[in-house]
């Protein structure tokens, strides 16, 4: 899908946020960017979305650089427009590309059903729980049918029950749709549960410290499966080895 070659990012205040990031991400992968706060993982996501440009190095896209709407982005907060209903919020990416409300309605409804909120299309964000707001946010990212989904710690602010449910739903969605997902997280468990490949990042400057392919089998009881627990242990061991004291 895309290749990063020696990508570095220095901010205008002189901070070196990312140094020499090189990796290739294939179509249909679920990649977790795992690391502590301040390791530049969100910056890396913003570079991929072209919200920032790399200071050095290059990102090359197998099928040419993505056009507006070809990337779905989910932020840490739901970032919904509080004055608009769930359906209006989901409609936004299509509206910005000039689609009429009537023409977009089937897609909006489909996106809301995909996240289990078909009955809440008229609800304003104020009337929704934290988990439901995040679902609307995910529906908004899905509505333009992007091939690539970039997610920046989307479940970090949710309670554990809601988080588990959304993680399960996200995995199901990924398996059904075959989208490429790049998921930023600081949770070892989340990375191990969701991803097919985990890029461990170390801070100051941010670099890829290790790369782990997941061999956890598809199973309904993934969270208690021995290979999942082994993966968690393996990542923990690597983290201890690569993180500065």
């Amino acid at each position, binding site marked *: 899908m895309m290749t990063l070659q020696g990508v570095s990012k220095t901010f205008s205040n002189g901070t070196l946020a990312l140094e020499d990031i090189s990796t290739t991400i294939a179509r249909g992968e679920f990649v977790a960017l795992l690391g502590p706060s301040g390791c530049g993982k969100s910056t890396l996501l*913003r570079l991929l*979305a072209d*919200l920032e440009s790399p200071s050095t190095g290059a990102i090359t896209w197998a099928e040419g650089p993505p*056009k*507006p*709407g070809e*990337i779905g*982005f989910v*932020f840490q*907060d739901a*970032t919904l*427009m*509080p*004055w608009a209903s769930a359906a209006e919020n989901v409609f*936004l*990416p299509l*509206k*910005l*590309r000039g689609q009429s409300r009537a023409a977009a309605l089937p897609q909006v409804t489909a996106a809301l059903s995909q996240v289990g909120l078909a009955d809440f299309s008229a609800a*304003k*964000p*104020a*009337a929704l729980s934290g988990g439901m707001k995040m679902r609307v946010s995910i529906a908004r990212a899905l509505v*333009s049918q992007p091939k690539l989904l970039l997610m920046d710690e989307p479940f970090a602010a949710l309670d554990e029950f809601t988080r588990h449910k959304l993680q399960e739903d996200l995995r199901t969605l990924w398996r059904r749709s075959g989208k490429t997902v790049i998921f930023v997280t600081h949770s070892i468990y989340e990375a191990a549960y969701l991803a097919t490949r985990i890029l461990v990042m170390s801070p100051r400057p941010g670099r890829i410290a290790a790369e782990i392919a997941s061999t956890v089998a598809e199973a309904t009881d993934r969270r208690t499966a021995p290979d999942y627990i082994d993966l968690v242990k393996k990542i923990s061991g690597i983290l201890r080895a690569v993180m500065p004291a």
Partner: protein
Amino acid sequence: MNKTMERAAPFLFGIIGLGLWQAAVWGTGIPVYVLPGPIAIVQAYAGDFATLNQAFVSTLSVAAAALLVSAALGVLLALAMAASALLRAAIQPWAVILQVTPVVAIAPLIIIWVNQPFLALVVCATVVAFFPVLSNTAAGLAATPRDLLDLFRLNGATRLQTLFLLRLPAALPYFLAGLRVSGTLALVGAVVAEFVAGSGGFASGLAFRILEAGYRLEIARMFAALMLLAFAGIAIYGALGLLSHLMLRRREI
């Protein structure tokens, strides 16, 4: 029970206060040209009903017109300031200078320059009132959530789309808060302008009636005009509160 008591409390308090006031006036025999009691004030109002009401409408119109102009001017300037850092640097100090210069000092000039009396009063009141709308709207436009701006960029939004679908709606609560402050200030500006215009012989509005009643030592009539002025203030404040409630209901912010 508690709720109804709470609602009734300000009225009860007012009635008790008025009662005590009237009792004090009767008890001490203080002359009406020093301190009239509530009854004398109501009598003065009834005795000059048409003139005072006309003055009330006149002052309220000046304040309302100034508020409308302030809202339009404030939003336009805030948009200009949000659109370009250069315009922001150019406008901001002048807006502040206009705001910190006491209107009493500028009012005579404006009244000389602007020949049409109503227009002159509106200009004075606008000078006083427009700043809160400007500064609040500018703050609201600057505080657009960064993530939402990124989302608009990711989806290839044009500048106009970002303005109308995101920045203006996001700034609405700020604008409305500014408008409520401006509403009160518009009345202050109208009163000050009327005082200045009134001492120049131009008869209009409640402030002029207060001035006139003062010259004639009709203190009860002065109080009646003052009471109407308070009503005008409450009307503006209440109307803007209602407007903001209607526009913001079912929003988080």
